[in-house]
């Protein structure tokens, strides 16, 4: 199942991207997801042919290696081979914050409901998971407040506090 986050809503979508496995031929579909090494070897030709291309990054792959191609990529899929491997969170934040990527950032692999809030806060907006969209949405929104700025641009506690203080001052003024 693929859940997409769009305009604050989580909903199920048809996945139009075909993953290309190691050593497999590239499918005839319009949209494909390649590993970083396949993309580096064959991506240029596919893009030139007008195909939609996504890149699947292993945790150790460096997002820096995608910088030049980001504007042409439809999506970046970040893999969680084990859910305890947290490197993809930094990759997602960097894609969003450092490199301003506004395409899809998809979580793939061992994607559990307990990670929903981490992923959403780090800028993921698509999730390959067996969890249903309502449960996923509830888990992603479990925390009513957040303490730190991140890629989701939710106002951290310190911003909420200063806004509350300003409102109070305005009322009293």
């Amino acid at each position, binding site marked *: 199942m693929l859940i997409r986050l769009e305009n604050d809503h989580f909903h199920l979508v048809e996945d139009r991207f075909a993953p290309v496995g190691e050593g497999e031929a590239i499918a005839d579909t319009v949209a494909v997801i390649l590993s970083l090494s396949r993309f580096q070897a064959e991506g240029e030709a596919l893009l030139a042919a007008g195909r939609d291309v996504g890149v699947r990054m292993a*945790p150790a792959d*460096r997002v820096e290696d995608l910088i030049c191609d980001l504007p042409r990529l439809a999506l970046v899929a970040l893999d969680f081979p084990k*859910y*305890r*491997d*947290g*490197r993809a*969170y*930094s*990759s997602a*934040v*960097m894609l969003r*914050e*450092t490199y301003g990527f506004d395409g899809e950032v998809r979580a793939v692999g061992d994607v*559990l409901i*307990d990670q929903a*809030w*981490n*992923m959403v*806060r*780090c800028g993921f907006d698509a999730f390959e998971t067996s969890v249903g969209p309502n449960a996923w949405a509830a888990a992603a929104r*479990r*925390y*009513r*407040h*957040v*303490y*730190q*700025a*991140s890629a989701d641009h939710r106002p951290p*506690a*310190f911003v*909420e*506090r*200063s806004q509350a*203080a300003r409102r109070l001052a305005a009322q009293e003024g």
Partner: protein
Amino acid sequence: MFQYDAIDAAMVADRNAEFRDQVSRRLSGELTEDQFKPLRLMNGLYLQLHSYMLRVAIPYGALSSAKMRALAHVARRWDRGYGHFTTRQNIQFHWIKLSDTPDVLDYLATAELHAIQTSGNCIRNTTSDPFAGAAAEEVDDPRVWSEVIRQWSTFHPEFTYLPRKFKIAVTASPRDRTAARAHDIGLVLRRNREGRLGFEVIVGGGMGRTPYIGATIREHLPAEHLLSYLTAILRVYNRFGRRDNLYKARIKILVASLGAAEFARLADEAWEAMDRPRADLPDVELARIRASFGLVDFRTLPPRSERFEAAKGDKAFARFARNNIVPHKVPGYGIVQVSLKGIGEVPGDCTADQMEALADLAERYGHGEIRVTHEQNLVLPHVALDDAPAVHAGLAAVGLATPNINLVSDMIACPGLDYCALANARAIPIAQAISETFADPDRAEQVGELKIKISGCINACGHHHVGHIGILGVDKKGEEYYQLTLGGSGAEDAAIGHVLGPALSADRVADAIDKLVDVYLAIRQPQERFLDTYRRTGVGPFKAAVYQDAHQA
């Protein structure tokens, strides 16, 4: 002291609801133990030899009387009437039922307590100076910065699944009571020549099987950039720290393999690339946190207390005053240290009755404040010297007046094989044997400052690497043996101890310590601590004394 606002309370409530759900999914079998493990660990719940252990956070070691009473209640209602204060300034309850934990956490939340991030591969409780707000030499209150870090690190979305656990220490005094240089990040707050606050940033210290003293990568990071710079360090670590080998996953290994200079370059690069104004804490929030610690309502007192001096006619009080009370920044006050190292007792253990007595004493005589030290003792940071005799009497009534702070029997020991699934050897009986060997308080005072630290395995939870004398339990063909190290320090003169010689059997350890102390007493020069003498003479005379018999044999 700092109090939660509605947002802080909501954070804890939301976490508790999440954890209650996770526990019920585990109990129903929807979650496997393997899936549940990282989740329960992030809520401080360990599966130990005999039962679950719940580790409750005591942020930067600061407790109020109300919080202490809540801990006493947990000890009595859900545990066996006691708790164990740890070297990370937290408290552990060793006999908790899994099905009770959601209720325990909800109860703790009523007293602004929780178990968030007390274990797991995330940013743990920040260590800070137990004398914060009381020490004359501090340049700022380190609790303010520790609270800044607490909030930033709580549920940090990017840094919840790090390669390994991550510990930060903050001190603002030249005297380091936090072991800052043995932390993943040590932060030493200072003022520069222009009077601006900044942090010396030390990275990559740690104990475990490969101990390191951390390297300084910034001499003076402007204090206002603390959070963005921490984010940069953590990002480098999260991305490049090793994940293939549990024992090589701490940041110290990354810093050592890259070199401190290269690590600093990567951190700076990440820092430059960041939207720093968005990551850093605005001044107004820093001011709010600073204000929320409030001011302690100290009285104006003469520096010399006649009542305090007169009470020294009592030998027991005089000894307590000499060893456990140190000067306060405010005239007429003292910092009272409460030893949890009673002779023959388990280091760090505290009964519910003792917790309640401490809560009462703190409320009556100590502005309601209690601190936990990383050496597993407690502190009443603000006691008027006039009240010190009454505090001493109150402590003595519950068996907490042991006058041995920094002395030989004031040891750190991990729970060891008596409780811990990882241990190779027992630690507590060794500590007990040593403290019985040095039960004579006159001799202990004659020996002076001597920090003995005992770990039951190579994970070094007992900080043996930085003990003036370190003791490491090892398994030799199914038997418990102990390796001694000398010359370590976790303080501002941080150093890793050196192995003395072949490991000793359990029954020889206390005797070996006795011999080491005899050598020290025989060769020390005026004013020299054990550590100073060792550093002057080297290992020679100490090694000879302990292994003399072996050579003869």
